[in-house]
């Protein structure tokens, strides 16, 4: 295949315009939650993978090496491998501390209607509860409460904040 220089220039110009348009198009899309997206922090660490927060900001400890929360993808209540690891640690801690009772709070990000998010938060809290029960923790020690999108931890409106807000948090009730 051969073409004249003139044509090549034209081709380049068209390609440039296409790229420029494509760049314009993506600008407003930072609102869109893409499941394949990942966000990188200022320090360069990947913090959101497939919509799930994988960093350690906002995470508190129930005990040494027992994180209090797990994170979810957009509109999802599946437990990632990392979430299962965290819940396994919580189960171990609960077994070692047989008198402790807990509440699991389910939360959603702000990108969904209030009523649906209440139901989604309930799903997330119960997903975590069910996992703890499979690890041998009695349901009598666990209550759940959904806050929907009412109690974010990060007030920003960006992918990282939303990922940090899609969570279930285990709190001691005694």
């Amino acid at each position, binding site marked *: 295949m051969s073409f004249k220089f003139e044509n090549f220039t034209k081709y380049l110009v068209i390609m440039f315009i296409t790229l420029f348009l494509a760049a314009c198009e993506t600008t*407003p*899309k930072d*609102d*869109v*939650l893409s499941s394949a997206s990942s966000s990188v922090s200022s320090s360069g660490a990947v913090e959101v993978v497939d919509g799930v927060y994988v960093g350690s900001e906002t995470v508190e400890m129930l005990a040494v090496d027992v994180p209090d929360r797990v994170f979810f993808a957009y509109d999802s*209540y599946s437990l990632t491998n990392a979430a299962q690891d965290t819940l396994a640690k919580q189960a171990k801690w609960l077994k070692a501390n047989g008198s402790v009772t807990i509440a699991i709070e389910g939360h959603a990000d*702000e*990108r*969904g*209607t*209030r*009523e*649906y998010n*209440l*139901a*989604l938060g*309930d*799903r997330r*809290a*119960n*997903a975590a*509860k*069910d996992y703890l029960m499979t690890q041998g923790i009695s349901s009598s020690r666990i209550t759940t*409460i*959904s806050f929907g999108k*009412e*109690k*974010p*931890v*990060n*007030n*920003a*409106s*960006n992918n990282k*904040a939303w990922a940090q807000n899609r969570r279930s948090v285990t709190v001691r009730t005694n």
Partner: protein
Amino acid sequence: MKKILLILFFVIFLSKVSHAIIEIDITEGNREPLPIAITEFFHDDNNELLKNDIPNQIRKVIVDDLERSGLFESLDQKAFIQQNKAMHINPRFADWRLIKAQGLLTGDLSIENERLKVEFRLWDTLSEKEIEGLVLITTINNWRRISHMIADKIYERLTGEEGYFDTRIVYVAEEGPKNKRIKKLAIMDQDGANHKFLTSGKELVLTPRFNPVRQEITYLSYFKNLPRVYLLNIQNGIQEVVGDFPGMTFAPRFSPDGNKIIMSLAKDGNSDIYVMDMISRVVERLTDSQAIDTSPSYSPDGKKITFNSDRGGSQQIYVMDSNGRNQKRISKGTGNYATPVWSPRGDLIAFTKNFQGQYFIGVMRTDGTGERLLTENWYQEAPSWSSNGRVLIFYRETKANDAGDGHSSSIWSIDLTGFNERKLETPLDASDPSWSKLIQ
């Protein structure tokens, strides 16, 4: 609140309504507003009307109601040529046509036996006829409601549709940063007057909805950290939890007869729709899917229920019989659909749609055809219909910046035509609006 109940009306028709020449077709989109001259009602100078500026205030309420509807343009009083009291009996129509008034409102105010007597006439300046006229008698403190009722009469006479100005809005007042938001129930007249907080802000409260028949509100409260549907009597302030459910109840709404509350119950991670009869206290389960079923809303005849479900993999709008049978999906477009609300006219369902990161308020027919998106924004949801099914209110949020600042929430209204979008002013931030029927 008692005053509203004690209101006493004598309604006397001043004339047989004749054939009208001026008429507004409100199904039309971006029409020019109808020019109307609203005069200050005549009154004696030496009575308590003047103390509170009532004659001027009545005119202002009527003007504001009609102008906010987007269908009327109130002409500047300074342009009025005829000023004498004779206009209320015998207007010089040529003078009013000269300033381009197609409608003319005249009236007379007096106090008789400590009651306010308001007489008004609406004139068609082209046909030179009186087309509406009433005498209303009530307690003096009720002058605002009288004004809304007059605006409703004018709207009704000129559009052929019931007015919606003598109504109230209950909503959630909000303040503080998102992670420490304080929310209270608040109620106000449709024009923002008579604003009042109904709860203290101690407990998180969400999604208040009016009883269409009684002075009651159903809403979600996190009282004692147990999210449950509550009932609030707005006359005596008494609150009660609705039913005794083994999990979170949420997304409540009344049936059209005001006797039932339909809501979601979340149990073991699954949300289904239940209905409770508030008289017999009988609870019935209407959906039984492994998915989220929520945001139920009755059709005005009470025979159908529309609701939101993700049983098909994404959030869509469904319709079922009020006994739970014949559940079927009606939303057909791409995107997620939520918060369906049946129009009081029965022909449309309003909804929130999320598509490509934007949020829309739209309407569709009850079989899902004829989808029409009225407004697009970064975030908005929860439409509520005006009593005549011509206007929707909803709430809209602004995007916070990366520091978490700049977020706000407010109530907006838009006509079914997609025109006349307006923000409702509230003392604090606002969300979850619910619009009452015409006050009885």
